[in-house]
């Protein structure tokens, strides 16, 4: 390199330094975090700690929320549900309707699951509410279904904000780049929480709360221990950080509780496989067979699981191994691959359709989705819509966007009438990885087993599908079978 070039480089560096001193970043602005507006607390006739269950006239159901203050156990529909108060200036609300918008990855979805079923779940729930008289004299309407086409959800979010004719947003997207657009605009946003964007944003809530990713927990060794496994293999995708972190958390958990879980060891660990598995997994499966692996955890999609299972069959090791699936709660897929997955365990974040609990919301779900093909996303939409409705009810008849979110964030023990692990929406905003205070009270596992191409509830006891550990107890102990129906 000639001297001229060096001079040039030095000059460039000097210029850069100059710019550096002159520049800053525009006010590291408030990315959500705080209430979007200084909204007035909920109107007086709506006690915001009293979200009511959905049911109509039936009063045999327990209320979903046992609150800190001893409230009457009587499940009662708040009298104000049908109170009509004229409202103006609240987007999406007129005298007849409360309109919401959904943003869903419909086209360009390459996940292998039908995300569009999310809209079905919302509409089913709205039908149920509207059939029972709506709320505040109005009907709930999913007025605008936007397709984010995988890459356009920020633009779609902005378009929705600018159109300003919806009260709230419902989001089920594979990527969520519109999160700040919605949050900063103060749009109450309910969504399918598969992203870290669901953390740290006041106006965004999911079907579950932000969860600890890659954290050490006894759940993994316990599950493997239950089927008598001692030698574990773990797979994660090498081109996804998410998958990698998940796999590492599983490994660390098993190594941490190795002795307590009967001397369980991680015999095989590979986070270098590529999405699509074009090169197959034959050498890896050979290695697992050589090492006598009898349980496989993965952080893969359902198609990846299929490739591994096929290779296990090919190498005559399938019967010796139980696989634990994080993303395979798909009835058609499992039915089509019944032989491949016999005996495997599938994890869900809600009470699966196979586990009946004493929940009015679950009964209504089956009632209103009877003619739909059920997908995981159907119930996610249903749960989101339920939280939205409960928030509205708690916000009172003179609601607006801010009071709706205030109300949602005031729910301290919210389990969607037992369908999910209870969430303290007030406390659980941040990612628990850095903020242990923001974690769930319980860490629970809800799993089904694949038997003859169908799912059978595997965890818990009849009526108590969840197996849970208190998060604060890190010593090895048996989980407790629970139900969160109140």
């Amino acid at each position, binding site marked *: 390199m000639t001297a001229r070039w060096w001079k040039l480089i030095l000059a460039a560096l000097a210029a850069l330094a100059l710019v550096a001193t002159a520049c800053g970043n525009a006010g590291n602005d408030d990315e959500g975090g705080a209430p979007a507006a200084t909204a007035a607390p909920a109107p007086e006739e709506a006690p915001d700690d009293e979200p009511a269950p959905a049911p109509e006239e039936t009063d045999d159901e327990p209320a979903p929320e046992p609150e800190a203050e001893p409230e009457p156990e009587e499940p009662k529909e708040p009298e104000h549900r049908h109170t009509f108060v004229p409202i103006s200036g609240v987007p999406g609300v007129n005298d007849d309707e409360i309109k919401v918008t959904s943003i869903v990855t419909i086209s360009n979805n390459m996940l292998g699951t039908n995300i569009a079923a999310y809209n079905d779940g919302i509409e089913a729930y709205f039908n149920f509410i509207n059939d029972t008289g709506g709320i505040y004299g109005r009907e709930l309407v999913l007025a605008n279904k936007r397709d984010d086409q995988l890459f356009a959800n920020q633009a779609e979010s902005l378009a929705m904000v600018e159109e300003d004719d919806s009260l709230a947003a419902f989001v089920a997207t594979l990527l969520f780049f519109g999160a700040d657009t919605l949050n900063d605009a103060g749009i109450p946003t309910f969504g399918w929480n598969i992203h870290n964007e669901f953390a740290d944003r006041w106006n965004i809530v999911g079907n579950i709360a932000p969860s600890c990713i890659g954290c050490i927990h006894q759940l993994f060794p316990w599950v493997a221990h239950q089927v008598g496994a001692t030698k574990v293999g773990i797979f994660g995708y090498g*081109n996804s950080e998410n998958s990698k972190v998940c796999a590492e958390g599983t490994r660390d958990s098993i190594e941490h509780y190795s002795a307590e879980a009967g001397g369980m060891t991680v015999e095989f660990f590979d986070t270098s496989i590529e999405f699509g598995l074009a090169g197959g997994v034959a050498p890896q499966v050979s290695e697992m067979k050589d090492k006598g692996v009898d349980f496989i955890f993965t952080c893969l999609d359902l198609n990846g699981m299929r490739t591994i299972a096929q290779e296990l069959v090919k190498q005559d090791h399938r019967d010796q191994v139980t696989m634990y699936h994080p993303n395979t709660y798909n009835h058609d897929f499992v039915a089509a691959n019944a032989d491949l997955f016999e005996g495997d365990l599938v994890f869900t974040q809600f009470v699966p359709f196979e586990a009946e609990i004493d929940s009015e919301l679950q009964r209504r779900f089956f009632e209103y989705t009877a003619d739909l093909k059920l997908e995981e996303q159907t119930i996610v939409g249903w749960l989101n819509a339920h939280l939205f409705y409960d928030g509205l009810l708690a916000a009172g008849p003179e609601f607006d966007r801010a009071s709706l979110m205030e109300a949602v964030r005031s729910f301290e023990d919210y389990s969607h009438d037992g369908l999910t692990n209870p969430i303290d929406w007030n406390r659980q905003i941040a990612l628990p990885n850095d903020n242990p205070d923001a974690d769930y009270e319980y860490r629970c596992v809800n799993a089904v087993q694949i038997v003859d191409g169908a799912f059978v509830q595997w965890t818990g006891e009849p009526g108590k599908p969840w197996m849970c550990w208190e998060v604060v107890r890190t010593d090895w102990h048996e989980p407790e079978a629970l139900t969160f129906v109140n």
Partner: protein
Amino acid sequence: MTASVLAAGVLEETIRAFFQGLPIGAGFALVAMSFVLTYKTSGVFNLAFGAQAFISAATYYELHVRRDWSIWLAVLVAVVLVAPVLGLLLERLIFRHVHAASAVAKLVISLGLLVALPELFKLIVDYNREQPFGAVGIIPDGTTVYRLFGRYPVTRDEIAAFVIVVAASLALAALFRYTRLGLRIRAVVQSPRMTELNGVNADWVSSGSWMLSSFFAGLAGVLLVPTTSSLGTVLEPTGFFPIVISALAAAALGRLVSLPAALLGGLALGVVTTQMRTHVPRDNVILAELQGPALPYVMLFAIIVFWPAIRRQVAGADPLLGVSPPPPALAATSRSRGMTIYTRVMALAFFTAVGIWTFGYANNFWISRITHSVIFSIIFLSIVVFTGLGGQIALCQVTFAAIGAFGAMQFAQRWDVSVIVGMLAGAAIAAAVGAVLSIPVMRLGGIWLAIATLAFALFFHDVLVKYDWVGGSLFHGRGVPRPEFFGVDFSSRENFLILCIAVLVLVGVLVILIRESSTGMALRALRGSETAAESIGVISWRSRVIVFSVSAGIAAIGGGLLAMEEKLVGYESNYDPQTGLFWLVIVVVLGARTVEGGIQAGVAFVIFPELVLDRWLGLHGAWRYVLFGFAAISFARHPEGLLEHGKRRSQAMMQRMFARRQPAMAAATTGPAVPTAADPEGEP
């Protein structure tokens, strides 16, 4: 004793990995042979191969899995009928007419098709509600297991794939060696014009070879269905990329022209893959990468850079080179003063109107769209610099844009340094990476450069992005603030738009300066005649490395601004390698040779799908891929771009009109008849 036991164990593992690698290699080989076949028979480096394979695979899936046709009928339709017909259509409607175009022009067309065909298929066959899974191979009971030598398990699918691939290669060899069609294909490839003089109907032969290669692509599509895990990936044209990259490595071993080398290379690379995974430990990051996502890219890059045969091939002349007419001069250089003033006034009026509307009336959504247009114009100027001025194709501008974006993000997140500095640092890094990347491949030029840059883009995508120091941490997100400097806060949409416009103007001026100055002259010289340029001392690869580096820097600046506009690095939605392919297509279609062309492409990229497709026509946004993808065909005839072409035509028309008004003067001044394009034909 333990040592010998150990050795026996290693030997056993090696043999096992060998048999595990062969079926994978058969997949690579099949794809590699399809590439070679098309290149050999048509001179087209056919990246649209992925699209052709996709269409057959998807047709098969649609018919067999979703409509319950029998396997054989579905295969018959998908592979024996649809694939050759598609090949025939491509040849008749497109490639026949670009016979003599440069290899680079053909590459652009195939890119356009790669983008357009699958989208068109998906628009016709709606997969939105029912996501495809449950891939079923074309072999009945394909998962039945057999044991080689009583111990090495293989499935019927794998055996069938291997047998089909070997049989197909033997059939091809026989075709080329013993049949008249094969001989004619070879002759036509060597010199289409000469063959035609000898009375061979080159058109017919050309159709035949396209049908044949398309048949192979279709066969590859359906055969690969069971070997890749996810139909979701197979049913995306990019789902083929990891396989395509390995296959390209195999094809490169035979310089893209040798079928036996493609076959053996593919098998060998398959075996290398499984051997790596069997013997190399995974506890080290680099070793783990080398047997995982990084492997195909490393293999391809190593072959391109180090395989001597490729160097020799490039040294030997491309027979088609120099056949294509030189690109016409830019309209601006030949237009009259009056026309220039007229165009400038019109442009000024247009931009003033848009400006008034934007800052006075537009809502945030449209301001954001316009900002996006401005930013994409900046990014596309990087394509103008390298492809428009340099005449070469690089497919990793998107990666440089990502480097700029991640640069801004990392500097802001880690050290709380201004995003502007981060963006500039990203640009410097991109420029350096561009230089380092291009030095070994720039001498090769042409399609090799395109292949190498595509491999780099995918390498970045599949391997690098997941690292903290590149793509950021999962836990901190990819937020990027807007900048503030010299006391001005650019956090509002309007202010940020002004900043972007300023950057666009600056970059536009730089591009014009480059075009009109020494570097631009060097590029023009190289474009005009590389031999002559070297005869006066131009170091061709160095000039190209320099502009590549500049173009990388520009892309990174654009990428950084895009991240600031969106307040995050929307990597998956904006910086995906497939998006990058579309960038190139839209820029060359609209006009890669001028700054206006780049800006028009930027506007079209953002505004067209939103305004024209969505709001006016009510069509799905994917139609833009179809429209611009097919428009890439025009590149062969109008390498200056459609808009530049239109401009020249309307200019000629206007000048004719002016001339008609003053026929006497025109006749007096032009003197002896020198026919020019602007001359009115029927003028007395």
